[in-house]
């Protein structure tokens, strides 16, 4: 019996007292993918991940992870899971090698294979020179490599990464993502949460989460193409004044300033948008160059997270 989804949830919900952190999330994440959770801080990404690896009990709803029902069958699942927590959670007073050896023992790696596996992991994640360094004295990027090495030491089928790059410089981030695609190519399913657009854009599949709800889901490309808005770029000498002028129009959903340019999201049914905006700006006494462009992921993110209560804007690809 082959289950081609690594994770399936239906109506997954978690409440903390009166506060609903995760509200009725339905997911179907295929195996072997790098799948992203994109959302602002406090959106419920961590809570969802914690429920999926059995750390938190769902208030209601169902979840199947690698075919195991969560949280009932969380114990047998643990051998097949890797989990990299948001904050560094290995032992700061142990060395790189000691931390890895500890995890190898906890996951009962065969005695003979243990040392070679630890050695291999240190090579792959550029930790060999740091083997005898205490984890607490390493940089953010080094700690992150150690955490990933520890989380993948037992070759898990499913890897949870909770905002793994929050304390890391851009170069380390790029290296890190290369490693993730190596792992996915080897068959590991990876669920990664992030609030960074460039990271989200690299995922095979993406779920955008806002205030505990799944507001959009699909491949980054499908999400960008299916955006429920028109995206216009405006080049003008006084972007702030232009922004104020545009915000007064009913069909303008949002305006974002990017240096000397503006990104305006308009209702999809707006007719002759370029002409309309140029006219509005002219009346405000502004010279402007307006053109329609294709949406980027941030435009999608703004569209689906800003105007709930408006018509439902989530494209489902």
């Amino acid at each position, binding site marked *: 019996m082959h289950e081609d989804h690594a994770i399936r949830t239906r109506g997954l919900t978690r409440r903390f007292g009166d506060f609903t952190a995760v509200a009725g999330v339905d997911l179907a994440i295929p195996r072997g993918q790098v799948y992203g959770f994109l959302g602002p801080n406090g959106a419920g990404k961590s809570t969802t991940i914690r429920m999926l690896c*059995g*750390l938190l*009990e769902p208030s209601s709803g169902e979840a199947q992870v690698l075919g195991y029902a969560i*949280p009932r069958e969380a114990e047998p699942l643990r051998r097949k899971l890797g989990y990299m927590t948001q904050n560094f959670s290995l*032992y*700061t*007073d142990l060395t790189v090698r*000691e931390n890895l050896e500890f995890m190898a*023992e*906890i996951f009962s790696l065969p005695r003979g294979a243990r040392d070679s596996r630890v050695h291999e992991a240190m090579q792959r994640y550029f930790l060999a020179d740091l083997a005898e360094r205490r984890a607490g004295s390493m940089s953010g990027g080094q700690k992150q490599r150690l955490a990933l090495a520890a989380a993948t030491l037992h070759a898990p089928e499913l890897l949870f990464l909770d905002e793994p790059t929050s304390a890391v410089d851009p170069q380390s981030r790029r290296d890190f993502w290369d490693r993730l695609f190596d792992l996915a190519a080897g068959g590991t399913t990876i669920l990664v949460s992030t609030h960074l657009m460039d990271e989200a854009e690299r995922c095979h599949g993406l779920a955008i989460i806002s205030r505990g709800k799944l507001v959009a889901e699909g491949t980054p490309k499908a999400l960008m193409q299916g955006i429920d808005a028109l995206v216009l770029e405006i080049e003008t000498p006084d972007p702030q004044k232009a922004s104020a002028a545009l915000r007064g129009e009913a069909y303008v959903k949002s305006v974002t300033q990017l240096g000397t340019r503006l990104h305006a999201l308009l209702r999809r049914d707006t007719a002759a948008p370029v002409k309309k905006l140029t006219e509005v700006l002219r009346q405000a006494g502004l010279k402007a160059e307006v053109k329609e462009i294709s949406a980027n992921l941030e435009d999608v993110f703004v569209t689906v997270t800003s105007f709930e209560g408006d018509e439902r804007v989530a494209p489902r690809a």
Partner: protein
Amino acid sequence: MNGWRPVLDSLRRIHAVAGKEVRQLLRDRLTFGMIVGIPLLQIVLFGYAINTDIRHLRAGVADMAHTQLSRTLVAEAQASQVVDFVVAAPSAPALEKLLDDGRISVGLYIPPDFDRRAASGMRPAAQLLVDGSDPTLLGVAQGLAVMPLLSRDVGAPTKTPLFELRNYYNPERRSAVDIVPALIGVILTLTMVLFTAVAIVRERERGNLELLITTPVRTSELMAGKIGPYIVIGLIQVTIVLVAGKLLFDVPVRGSLVDLYLAALLFIAASLGLGLLISTVAKTQFQAMQLTVFTFLPSLLLSGFMFPFDGMPRFAQELGELLPLTHFVRLVRGILLRGASLGALLPDVWPLAVFFFLTMTLAILKFRKRLD
């Protein structure tokens, strides 16, 4: 052959947790210092400072009689070595003033009609004024008051006391002999409960637990791996106190050392169980420490270490019976001072076993492999 695999894996995980704990302990200088430092400091402090065998109290005398007999009384009291007469006061009020000012702790007032009172025996012949704000002084004074001369048999040619008192086990009445064995228990209570209470809470605080509970390690394995190293540390501490007690205070070891270490092992286990239970309740290391002190004080006061157990009110005794230290104090005094065997002390052995079993069970039940 495959049937052994889960057991072996389980042992490996316990070993991994224990090994990690030892490494961390060796690198944490302060904690490591406490393992050796606390026993040594405590034994020196308690051994030298606590001395219930009181001598040379500063005393004053107001002799209003000035007779042969009154001078004999003063001389006898001085000869007891319990009091040193350092001042002579001209009157009773002057003597009281000295006591009020704290210049003396005991005052002896001999009234002008001392000889007549002593001969008649109808009224007390002399008065002892005692600084009652210190309860031990009061006890000492009561001892002085029954000195032959102060009682009624002044006229009798020979003074035969009614009872002959023989002090068993500690003939020289040295406090250290009583205190040091029980001190093993006090030190273990403090360090064992504290170390384990902090051990799990620390992992929770540093975020290690969030990772650890997503791994296959079981709660019981985590607990076993955590307490293993501390059992060894506890036994090291027992040895330190025993050796220091022998070298510094010449505390005897009359019973079997094997019995002693077995009793200590049981007591260490009970203390560790309590520590683990605290660690499942406390949210922060600070709370864990507060809870430890909260359990430590009653142990210190109600176990019979500080005050004689038989002298306590019934309610306090019953409370004391619930504390592991109470039973261990009896065991260790029995084995070291009276040379009793563990078999003869069973009534204090099984409560420790029960305590360990209960606290461990509760701790494992209470500790969930979850964050909520």
